[in-house]
């Protein structure tokens, strides 16, 4: 019951909130030249195979964009390459005109908030130690991370160790670590994969709350969350961009069916819709 209310409520503001968050601007990606994120000819080879091959992609300076696609489509690779966790073999990624691939790692680390798919620190650090590290990486004003700790309700967790935290608590710590310095670009690699419904909704709401100050590029498996929260959706298939547009377009004309190799059924209700995979093609 509560779940349903949430869906309809959340379905309404499709556009990212805030001044620059008019849905059209985000979906159309018509940002002034030089600002925002511009990806150009990014290629990644692994074991002699081209696993990522993006021709060109332009994203505005702020807003929410989802990256969807079947397993192995290159979602993680794209985010890891942009975040600096992996190296690209070709291409460039300009963030406000500066190439993320060619700037010093520490500078990139200050500009990008990276939420990895798996985060398993080796020393069972205390939460405040992790936040300290995150803060040092950004060189942000000290107050910012204290604010983030407050914002994600980490007060009681600060003196606790990572391995003793629940999945939801870990997610909050990771978000504070990634978002604390208010980076202009946030990359989240299936951040909700290990979270229950309430926590993954809250995480997406946190993203939406900040979509007016940063650009969020989020790899996500749950298509219904993707169409509900993200005004801009990029679908990858075999390392190539198979679709780039709004949720309504995605649900039309069998785009999803081609990307996932599954026939999807669209069920409309109220002012939203849901997508169900019905039969494999």
């Amino acid at each position, binding site marked *: 019951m509560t779940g349903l209310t*949430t869906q309809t409520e959340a379905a309404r503001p499709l556009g990212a909130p805030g001044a620059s968050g008019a849905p059209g601007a985000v979906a159309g990606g018509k940002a002034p030249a030089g600002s925002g994120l511009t990806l150009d000819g990014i290629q990644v080879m692994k074991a002699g195979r081209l696993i990522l091959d993006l021709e060109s992609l332009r994203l505005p300076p702020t807003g929410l964009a989802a990256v969807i696609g079947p397993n192995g489509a290159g979602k993680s690779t794209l985010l890891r390459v942009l975040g600096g966790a992996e190296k690209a073999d070709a291409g460039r990624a300009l963030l406000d005109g500066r190439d993320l691939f060619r700037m010093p790692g520490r500078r990139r680390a200050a500009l990008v908030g990276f939420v990895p798919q798996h985060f398993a620190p080796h020393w069972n650090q205390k939460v405040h*130690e992790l936040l300290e590290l995150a803060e040092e990486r950004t060189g942000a*004003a000290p107050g910012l991370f204290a604010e983030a700790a407050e914002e994600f*309700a980490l007060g009681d967790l*600060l003196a606790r160790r990572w391995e003793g935290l629940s999945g939801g608590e870990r997610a909050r710590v990771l978000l504070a670590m990634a978002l604390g310095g*208010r980076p202009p670009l946030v990359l989240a690699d299936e951040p909700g994969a290990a979270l229950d419904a309430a926590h993954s909704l809250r995480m997406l*709401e*946190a993203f939406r709350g900040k979509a*007016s100050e940063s650009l969020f590029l989020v790899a996500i498996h749950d298509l219904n969350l993707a169409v509900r929260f993200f005004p801009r959706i990029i679908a990858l298939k075999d390392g190539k961009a198979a679709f780039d547009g709004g949720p309504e377009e995605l649900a039309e004309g069998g785009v999803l069916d081609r990307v996932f190799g599954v026939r999807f059924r669209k069920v409309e209700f109220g002012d939203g819709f849901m997508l169900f995979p019905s039969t494999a093609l």
Partner: protein
Amino acid sequence: MSRDGKGAQGSAAAGAAPGTPPSGKPIPRGSVSAGAASGGASPEAPVPGGASLEGAAPGSAVFENAAPGRATGGRPFHGDRHARVRSASAARTRAVFLGAFLVFAIAFLFALCAGHVWSSPAEALRSIFGEGREKANLIYLWRLPRAVTAAAVGALLGLSGAVFQGIFRNPLAEPWLVGSSGGAAVGATLALLLPWPVSQEIVLPSLSFAGALGAAFLVLALARLSGSLDTATLLLAGIAVSAILTALRSFLMMTLSSDNLSLQVVMSWLMGSIQAPDGTRMTVFLCLSALVFALSLLMARPLDLLGLGESMAAAWGLNVRRAVVLGLILGSAAAALAVSAGGMVAFVGLAAPHVGRFLVGTRHRRLIPFSALAGAVLVTAADALARSLLPPGEIPLGLLTALAGGPFFLVLLAGRNRAT
């Protein structure tokens, strides 16, 4: 509802003010100021959705706008808690370091007093600060250099343990287990038993270093080859490499020793015993130790980042490969220096960082100095016992540390198994 939300936002912004410097300045890339951000976000914040979820997880108050009233309730200043936890941890660290320094001072004094003939602390102090009596001479000329060497060897072992554990991201890594002590021993055996055209003061440390570095890289490569750096892999690789090195060393000792080259030297050295270098060699040894210590502090940030996992470390701006190579070189240099002055001393490098992580936390800029200090305490005290327990003989230092460290290692393994 919306008025509630606005009120909370307002108070949140007011609360944030003390911690937030004037907008524009602090965030160099800042496209949006803090005030504009929260103002822009609030009208669209799905308050009803959040409210309906509140019941689902009451303990975990907020993801930002889920419960706007609660974030500031009862806490007038943002980050108060954060600052408190931090300063508490800093105060604790200061106290721990102070305590460790005191313990070290006591251990050092004990080392000056200990010997075949025991001296009183007063005597020991008097002998160092003037008044040359015969017994004082013994303390000043013999026990003092030995205690200083022991402290340096211990500090080097503790430090290299902390560095190796950080590089391998494994709490069981230490110079002895990752083979670098064994490698250094092979190098040193070669240096001691072969006739070299250059003086031994150069050959011994360089061959020890080369051996230590080679062995550490070999273990790392083997562990990488099998795809992981987990405890089992590391231990297996370390054991395999150590076994090979031990065999190699024994073979060298058998074939190279002759009547005029005494095995005794090599043997006592292998079981670990502090040999205080004399004159300029002492100066060189201490300078190199200080240099290694200073360099290891530069490794603190890379090691912290490595502790987050390689992906996160790379994302946060670390050149992982370079950091690993530099760390191995540094850890091996520390191990080789320690081996060249103290032989094979087991388990100090394992134990010191463990005590450190327990007492000062996981940040390496605190952990490395503390491990060095703890190692210095351990070896200074152990060496004092080694040369005073069974007069007129001397117990090999390595035996004492292994006796104390072996059980520690077992407890550690047991604890790990219980945890997993």
